[in-house]
């Protein structure tokens, strides 16, 4: 499509030799980017490679230390997002920039509100929103509150927000990270439709498949440095991967065949309500056995969170039973569950997994702080606590070394995750629940986490894996349970799973 820019149009966006330093850390080190009208241009790089930093400069959120930004051939000083918006640039952030208690209309017009005298003209605002949603075929409910609509809808609102401001160039930062396969397809269609209308799209991602499916060109950056810009049709996924990581990567997880042992976790007819008092689990049944990884595939909001919270004792169900090694842990405390064999790698490591203000050594004893040898007669024993941490840091390669007394919050995301994994592995429980265990980690750390999960399975643990990354579920699970609307709607052996059928089942279209 937009690929034949033989007419030698000036590029809509040109970034030349961009350098961005934070203190003495160089986040962008001489990056070039050229985007033409009507083109989908992917920017590929690992987490932390500097993609978002680059885009934040294009959008005026931060200023480059040196380098030039040209829009339609004109050099532009981007001092704040207002300048970017004026230059026709719109950005959809990975973490949506939406005001939860506001309505869709309020969110879209915020910052460029129509007024009638001194009064906000919400009638006009609503009409404008309806007009633009119709124009681009992105239907939304203008009166719904953001907190009440799905993630896919929220993303539409974000795109509309940019279009409303007359964006000609759209930056999409990791737009698919929380979408279902179907929603991803829809998004790709929307993207193509927009480029047909003459918009240009910059797609930030680390997902190779999406680039192959949607982008025309791809610029690869690694460790803040410019690597290359390629025509997507001329390269393979593994070429892209190698350029991104700078070495050969294998996506295969080495996993020996194993016969599952006895049942460790059994969930029977589980019912529960969510925080809004709406029934979210509607009779869920589930079994996880020794030497087995059971993956839960599903769209966020179908009851995964509640299921995990009930098994770990953080939430109470309304009906049903949860057995671990035959003992009921249903509607007990987290501590009871822990004592009877439940351990977990929580979804949000900073919120649930770690106390960021505490030292690494204190985080490593979170569930065991009362137990010998870490405490005797309610007095903490610093010696054993410290040597335990030393051992864990060495064994799990938590960096930087010697960080026993450092606050967990000062570690990088991957190392924070290692602290949690170390803790849960040392806990040595029969059941390990891992929720989005690799979210926000880069390739190296992901390989590491996957390796540990498989190793634990091989050692005879039962593992329940809940993830929104379908690839992760498919490559790790022995069995995949698809969750939809509060029930497990189908069970597929890991080897036989394919993305299309899973996606269909996740959307409620599959056969039980």
């Amino acid at each position, binding site marked *: 499509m937009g690929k034949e820019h033989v007419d030698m149009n000036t590029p809509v966006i040109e970034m030349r030799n961009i350098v961005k330093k934070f203190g003495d850390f160089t986040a962008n080190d001489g990056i070039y980017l050229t985007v033409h009208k009507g083109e989908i241009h992917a920017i590929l790089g690992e987490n932390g490679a500097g993609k978002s930093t680059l885009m934040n400069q294009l959008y005026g959120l931060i*200023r480059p230390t040196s380098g030039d930004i040209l829009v339609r051939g004109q050099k532009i000083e981007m001092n704040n*997002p207002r300048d970017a918006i004026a230059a026709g640039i719109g950005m959809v952030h990975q973490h949506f*920039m939406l005001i939860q208690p*506001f309505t869709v209309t309020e969110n879209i017009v915020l910052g460029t509100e129509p007024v009638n005298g001194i009064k*906000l003209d919400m009638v006009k605002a609503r009409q404008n929103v309806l007009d633009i949603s119709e124009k681009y075929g992105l239907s939304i409910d203008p009166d719904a509150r953001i907190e009440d609509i799905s993630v896919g809808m929220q993303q539409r609102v974000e795109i509309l927000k940019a279009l409303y401001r007359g964006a000609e160039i759209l930056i999409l930062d990791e737009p698919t990270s929380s979408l279902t396969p179907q929603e991803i397809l829809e998004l790709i269609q929307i993207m193509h439709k927009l480029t047909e209308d003459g918009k240009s799209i910059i797609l930030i991602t680390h997902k190779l498949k999406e680039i192959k499916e949607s982008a025309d060109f791809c610029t690869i950056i690694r460790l803040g440095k410019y690597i290359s810009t390629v025509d997507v049709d001329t390269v393979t996924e593994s070429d892209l991967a190698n350029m991104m990581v700078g070495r050969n990567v294998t996506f295969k997880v080495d996993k020996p065949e194993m016969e599952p042992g006895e049942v460790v976790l059994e969930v029977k007819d589980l019912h529960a309500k969510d925080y809004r008092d709406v029934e979210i689990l509607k009779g869920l049944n589930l079994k996880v056995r020794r030497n087995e990884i059971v993956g839960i595939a599903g769209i966020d909001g179908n009851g995964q969170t509640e299921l995990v919270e009930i098994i770990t004792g953080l939430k109470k169900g309304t009906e049903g039973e949860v057995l671990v090694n035959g003992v009921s842990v249903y509607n007990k405390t987290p501590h009871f569950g822990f004592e009877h064999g439940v351990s977990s790698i929580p979804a949000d490591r900073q919120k649930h997994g770690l106390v960021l203000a505490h030292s690494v050594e204190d985080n490593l004893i979170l569930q065991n702080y009362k137990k010998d040898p870490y405490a005797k007669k309610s007095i903490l024993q610093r010696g054993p606590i410290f040597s335990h941490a030393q051992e864990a840091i060495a064994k799990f390669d938590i960096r930087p070394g010697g960080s026993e007394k450092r606050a967990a919050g000062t570690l990088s995301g991957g190392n924070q995750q290692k602290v949690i994994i170390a803790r849960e592995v040392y806990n040595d429980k029969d059941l390990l629940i891992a929720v989005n265990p690799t979210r926000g980690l880069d390739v190296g750390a992901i390989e590491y986490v996957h390796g540990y999960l498989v190793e634990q399975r091989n050692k005879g643990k039962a593992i329940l894996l809940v993830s929104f990354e379908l690839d992760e579920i498919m490559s790790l699970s022995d069995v995949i349970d698809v969750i939809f609307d509060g029930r497990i709607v189908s069970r597929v052996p890991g080897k036989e799973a394919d993305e299309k059928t899973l996606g269909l089942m996740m959307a409620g279209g599959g056969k039980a």
Partner: protein
Amino acid sequence: MTDVINSLGILLFATLAYGTPLIYAALGSCFSEISGVVNIGIEGMMTAGAFTGTVTAYFTGNPWIGFLCGGLAGMLFGALHALATVRLGADQTIAGTAINMLGPGLVIMIARVLFNSTDTIPLTPEQRMPRLLTGVFDTTTTFGRFMDNVFSTYASTYLVFVAVIIVWFVFYKTRFGLRMRACGEHPAACETLGINVLRTRFLCVCMSGFLAGLGGACVTMAISNQFRPISIVGQGFIAIAAVIFGKFRPHGALIGCLLFGFCSGLKTVLGGSSGIDTQLISMIPYVVTVLVLILFVGKSRVPSASGKPFIKAR
């Protein structure tokens, strides 16, 4: 029957008299809180307003200039709080505590210099906040007396209801209101839309000081006629409580303040006659607030970004 109506009239008068300064201060607190800045310095800002209002009224002889200057003095401390919390990213609780020490300390020190006493010289009736509708009602009839009690009240009380409507309008019907509420919920999102979060918050905190200052001025220019170190004793905190009570909405805070004023009014009405110890009666407003919270209000939703300094990357 006459007695009851009389008492009721006095009760309503007292409700409004006690409630008025609280409402001003609570409106101020709403401004600050809803834009995402916790302001426990309201008390100090009220004290500054109370003193400055009385002193300027005394020297100029004009209560309105005094009232306005009271607001401006509060605004000055508001600006100080904004400087610390919005511009310099200070801890909002600590900065507020500092304001609460600085405000009273400074004005009492100035009082000592000006009047050689911690109290100001009492205002003459012309220098005080005027009462409206005085003499309009026939006070010889029971009904007339009731009307006189309720409506023949200070101009600042009439004004505060206008202020509530204006603040409500600004919050929910104007561009600025939408933006400042957005700043209290998700400052980073506002920044991506080109809204200047720091400026918006700065303005809101200044505004919060201004209204608190007006509230302080009401105390010393309407209810009483001079500033004393104990003129402002906890009203600022009560106003904050009313805002939490009213779930950070100006109309909610209004109800909280009136409820509190009503209970304080009960104290006046019951005080002399009932035979109950005055100290126990004085407790009523606080106990009732707690009870109402338990029975009717419960949790209030704090603006998401409240209390968190917003630091821009550059």
